[in-house]
């Protein structure tokens, strides 16, 4: 994994954490699973509002644009507004939402698009 990719993944973790905290969620867990073809971020949160689920889906499920990603990735994790996730949507391919009892599990998937350096 390149140094830039590591930085980028940590910024995604930061943005997701900030987003939850800024929306008043104080109890959530975030697990990262790094694989060769994709990285998955599993965010487990209790009692996630329906409107927030829709907002996340809308922002994240848009098409990824690699040229925008290389240009603006440094801004990820610098949330100053409840309605952000704009740039996160450029870095994550899609989000799957499932329910686990009272918890909502959001799985953000980022596919590897960069060639690994030999």
């Amino acid at each position, binding site marked *: 994994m390149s140094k830039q990719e590591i930085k980028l993944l940590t910024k995604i973790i930061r943005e997701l954490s900030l987003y939850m905290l800024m929306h008043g969620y104080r109890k959530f867990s975030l697990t990262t699973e790094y694989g060769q073809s994709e990285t998955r971020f599993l965010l487990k949160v209790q009692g996630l509002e329906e409107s927030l689920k829709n907002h996340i889906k*809308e922002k994240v499920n848009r*098409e990824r644009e690699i*040229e925008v990603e290389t*240009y*603006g990735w440094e*801004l990820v994790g610098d949330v100053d507004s*409840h*309605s952000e996730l*704009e740039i996160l949507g450029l870095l994550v391919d899609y989000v799957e939402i499932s329910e686990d009892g009272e918890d909502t599990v959001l799985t953000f998937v980022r596919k590897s698009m960069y060639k690994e350096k030999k």
Partner: protein
Amino acid sequence: MTKILMKPRIALIVMFVLLFSMAFYFDDVSTIYHGYIAILRSPSVLISDYLEIGGLGATLFNVATILLINVVMISYLKMKMSGPVFAGILTIAGFSFFGKNIFNTIPIYIGIYIYARMQSLDFKSFFIVVLFSTGISPIVSFMIFGVGWADWFGLSPFWNYWIGVPAGVVLGLITGFVLPAFGAHTIRFHKGYNLYNIGFALGVLSMLFSALLRSFHFIDLDQGGPTSEAFHSELLLLTIVLSLVFIAIAYVNDLQVHKKYWSLMKSSGRLVSDYIRDYGRSVSMLNVGVLGIMCVIILWVLNFEINGPIMGGILTVMGFGSFGKHPRNCLPVMFGAYLAVVLTDHSFDGIGMMTALLFVTAVAPIAGRYGVLIGVLAGFIHVVITPLALVFQEGGFNLYNNGFAAGFVAALMIPFLEAITKNNGEEEEEQ
């Protein structure tokens, strides 16, 4: 059929045909040829109005060819016409009226290509940087045509090119090579509230080049020339026609497009806002056309005549209609800029303030995010900072001088605004 017509790429091809036809309508082949050679051989530093240097036909030919090359490159790389790409293309076209030409842009592109290869990344993943990188292209022309190497070394004029061409090309390659990483870094400085982020990065590099060249004491760094207002009517007509073409394309696709326009106008415009992706092509093209008409009205009210740099400003404002600008966030900063000029020692007699009134829209996201009054203040600060920014970049190698100034405006204002915003900056929902 409508699916084809709605594509922004088609609008750009229409623009190319229009520019190319106008070039040969206004001038004959010989005039265009000689004017074009004069453009290619000019140092191209701020402010080199190609209308003054090469005439209308040659300038339009220069703009058309640069436009065509970039559109072809996008097609060759199989890139989507996203908002940033569209903005980059129109910005390049705009600055081809005063500083960019085929000769001085290519080395920078190659520098970025080499960087991409060394990073094992696709060249197209840096395409936004590629499009905006040529703001510093005058450094290439200046090293070749502006230094006068032979005089300095006491050689025959023949050596001007033998030393100048490698020097210009190498400096262009180095600039292109360092820019992708540097541009990604500078975006944090202003937190995405300066739409001309690469302009800020180029300003820092330009400052370095100016300092180095000045240190050698042998180079005259003030080589800007006069502007030409002789083609005001033709360029005004071109702007109106282009704006109407974009508006027509929007309506051909969607007769109800104006009903969706408000959702776009509620966005802050902060980087990285891709309006084509977020709001659709029709709404974006309507916004581009409306911004063009807005510029025409402002120029008419203030009685400005269009020259190369002003035309560049208009096309840049229009281009960013797909990448962060709309009338709601532009007008407050423009009004702030206007106030700064009329309330201070500045005046609209010089080209600097006239162009600042258009390029101040780099800080439009500040108005989009924090409201009209803060936007007016941002515009005001921008205008008082811009002349200072030029001092740091003596020599005029960075065509995006306003982008350099805008970076400081945003960096000054945003941390404070973020700190005092009570609700952590909750803004209106954008959709």
